[in-house]
């Protein structure tokens, strides 16, 4: 699930909502005689409208074109609902003439998760690289109820994020850390 889908849904629902509101509102205005009392008694499909395509063979093909466009946009909208904006590979190529460098996102995220799990109080860690409004990493960290939030944050920001940025070769790589305090009472990992 992606945040891009949420943005697209809001935009499309706003457009459709406004169109329906305008259509319904104009129809009501017509029915109460806002455009002339006589027009309220006109049939919904007037003679002029129903005979408009007669003698215009292009009309229905233009309608087909518009309908196909709507179908394609609806399909894309439908696919947006199930498509995640996670990235599986990171292109680290600096100069294509010297060759291409690709980093598997899972190699990076596994390393990040392992390092985060090494911090006292962290019971679970999940990392992903997303591609929405530019690349960024999302690190979700579950904390034991007894965890020192300040200490965990410091180590995550100073160590884990620093190493992640070293890995991608970008000292300003954007990172979002989602902390889940009190997610579990006892750490899943223990030192033997």
């Amino acid at each position, binding site marked *: 699930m992606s945040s891009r889908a949420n943005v697209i849904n809001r935009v499309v629902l706003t457009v459709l909502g406004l169109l329906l509101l305008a259509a319904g509102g104009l129809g009501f205005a017509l029915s109460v005689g806002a455009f002339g009392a006589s027009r309220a008694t006109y049939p919904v499909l007037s003679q002029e409208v129903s005979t408009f395509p007669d003698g215009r063979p292009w009309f229905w093909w233009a*309608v087909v074109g518009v309908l196909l466009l709507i179908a394609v946009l609806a399909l894309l909208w439908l696919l947006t609902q199930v498509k995640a904006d996670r990235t599986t590979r990171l292109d680290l190529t600096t100069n294509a003439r010297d060759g291409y460098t690709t980093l598997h996102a899972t190699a990076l995220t596994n390393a990040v998760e392992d390092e985060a799990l090494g911090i006292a109080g962290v019971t679970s860690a999940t990392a992903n690289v997303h591609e929405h409004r530019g690349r960024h990493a999302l690190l979700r960290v579950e904390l034991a109820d007894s965890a020192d939030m300040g200490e965990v944050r410091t180590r995550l920001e100073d160590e884990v994020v620093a190493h992640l940025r070293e890995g991608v070769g970008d000292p300003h790589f954007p990172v979002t850390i989602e902390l889940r305090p009190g997610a579990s009472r006892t750490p899943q990992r223990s030192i033997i």
Partner: protein
Amino acid sequence: MTAANWVTRVVSALLALALLIGSLLAVVEIVAAALGRAPALIPYPEWTSWLRTHSWNDWIVNAVLGGLVVLGLLFLVLAFRRGKPASLALRSRSGGVDVTASRRSVEKSLATAAARTTGIAGASASVSRRTARVDARTVARSEPGIREEVESAVRGRLDSLGLERRMRTRVDLTMKDTR
């Protein structure tokens, strides 16, 4: 993802599917009509004659228009409602790093903090954008000033989180049913 986002996601998927099927059906009917065939799936000649025999001020036409307005408003409500946040922003310490705390875990954490107060048998918490509300159940004979103690525990936990926006706290106490 919040419950509000799930509802929007499901409605959007259904609407996209309806638009896709509807537009393809209409294309099939136009092509069939161009080839001189009878309506394949949609009885559009009946629909056309219905539209020709009903005027704008007919009650059934008004009912359909009312339905369009209501549907349009529902879509706008879905598009603009904010609901409870999935996560709360924490104060940023370093550039390029956004730190958040998931709302559910903050609620759980506040409930735990409140429940640890002496005289409290259990607690639940709910967090909105600006307010943290804690419902605590006291044991039969609770000490005076227990509300202040719960509030202090909840505030302490919120301070330790370092939320970007200061949150109001509200504590409601109920006596635990000892029957």
